[in-house]
């Protein structure tokens, strides 16, 4: 469903992606792990055109991703994104955040958008927070609203950019369990994360990225339990046993 072929990307003189080739099938959950600055987030941002890429090709269901072309709008409505810092619209309530896209981008009738918006908020466990503005919600609640906002576009895939990294530890579980439910329901997901437990339990495949290249990839359990490459082994040892 999502294909990357030899994707290169530089910021100025720094090449952050040095030839990424990967694919994500329908209903697959792929976790991208790796040290900070390895290019993990950049991959996600290139997939939905928040960043352009210099060489290679990215396509979503056969349509080429070009951040400078009008077609990017259609791709973005199919591939939603959830951010590390939530990026909810603070001047709108939780429900208004969720229905913003359906109302103004997809031009759905209001009653229909509101009904589905409320159902989605219920799905992420926030039915009672529909009329609350984001600054009055906890980080975990905000992130769940953000997931509902992404789902409201009825996307074919969702990209998660470190969705739990900005959360207090005790709030991480609520967000991860919402994501796990999505995975169980067959949503195609690409998740950049440091939550190795989530990757092991929920992901079908794991990509380990370091220095802008895919160092190792494979079934989640085999990469995480028996990493083959020394860099993957080193990274996992540091993450799982920091002391």
């Amino acid at each position, binding site marked *: 469903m999502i294909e990357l072929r030899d994707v290169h990307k530089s910021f100025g003189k720094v090449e952050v992606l040095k030839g990424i080739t990967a694919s994500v099938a329908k209903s697959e959950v792929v976790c991208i792990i790796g040290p900070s600055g390895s290019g993990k987030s950049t991959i996600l941002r290139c997939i*939905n*055109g*928040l960043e352009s890429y210099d060489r290679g090709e990215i396509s979503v269901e056969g349509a080429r991703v070009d951040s400078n072309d009008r077609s990017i*709008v*259609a791709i*973005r*409505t199919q591939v*939603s*994104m959830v*951010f590390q*810092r939530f*990026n*909810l*619209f*603070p*001047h709108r309530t939780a429900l208004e955040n969720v229905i*913003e*896209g359906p109302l*103004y*981008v*997809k031009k759905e009738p209001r009653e229909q958008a509101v009904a589905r918006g409320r159902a989605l908020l219920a799905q992420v466990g926030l039915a009672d927070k529909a009329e609350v503005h984001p600054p009055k919600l906890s980080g975990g609640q905000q992130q769940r609203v*953000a997931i509902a*906002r*992404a789902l*409201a*576009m009825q996307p074919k895939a969702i990209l998660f950019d470190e969705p739990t990294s900005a959360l207090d530890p005790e709030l991480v579980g609520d967000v991860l369990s919402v994501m796990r439910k999505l995975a169980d329901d067959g949503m195609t997901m690409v998740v950049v994360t440091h939550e190795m437990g989530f990757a092991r339990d929920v992901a079908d495949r794991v990509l380990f990225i370091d220095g802008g290249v895919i160092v190792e990839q494979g079934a989640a359990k085999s990469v995480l339990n028996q990493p083959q490459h020394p860099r993957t082994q080193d990274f996992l040892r540091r993450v799982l046993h920091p002391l």
Partner: protein
Amino acid sequence: MQKFFHDAVEFVPILLQGVWLTIVVTVGSLLLSTVLGLVWALMRVSGIRILTGLSAALINVIRGIPIIVLLFYIYFVMPDFGIALSALQAAIIGLGIAYSAYQAENFRAGIEAIDKGQIEAAQTIGMGWWLTMRRVVLPQAVRIILPPYGNIMIMMLKDSSQASTITVAELALQGKLIASSTFKNTSVFTLVALMYLTMSIPLILLVRHFENKANRK
């Protein structure tokens, strides 16, 4: 003091005609400067190089010319190019253009203060540039823009007196005319100053209201 009140009764009705024109010039040029300023600011943040450059150049040219020269230019020079405007029209257009530069810089600062993540979130739900501006950026930028906007309103009220230089009989010119024909300088200009002050006070209170509201957030 009694003489002052006596003069006031006599001159206030004439000065009020000037007050009316002052309000017309201020409101007219405020509207024009707001619209133009918003256009310059949106051009500036559009990310399209030609528009950005054009807007930056325009703002600098406008900022670099004194208001009075701009007014003379529009009122006295434009007729040479076949554009003859009434003094009132020229005043509103001149002040509107002059202040559009300051409005633009204020709007731009407000727009650029909005977190980039907001724009990215809007993009990821499929919003285009204009929809992102209208639904996400501008509603949030307004809180930042309003307090300085109030100050610009006060400055424009006072600078509307520059319209007197191209014969618009607003409050300042009306005062000068009465003073030069009656020689009652003290009474007349005290009244003129009080009238400007009276018009400024609601604006000053409005600015305070905006500031409180912005700080509460």
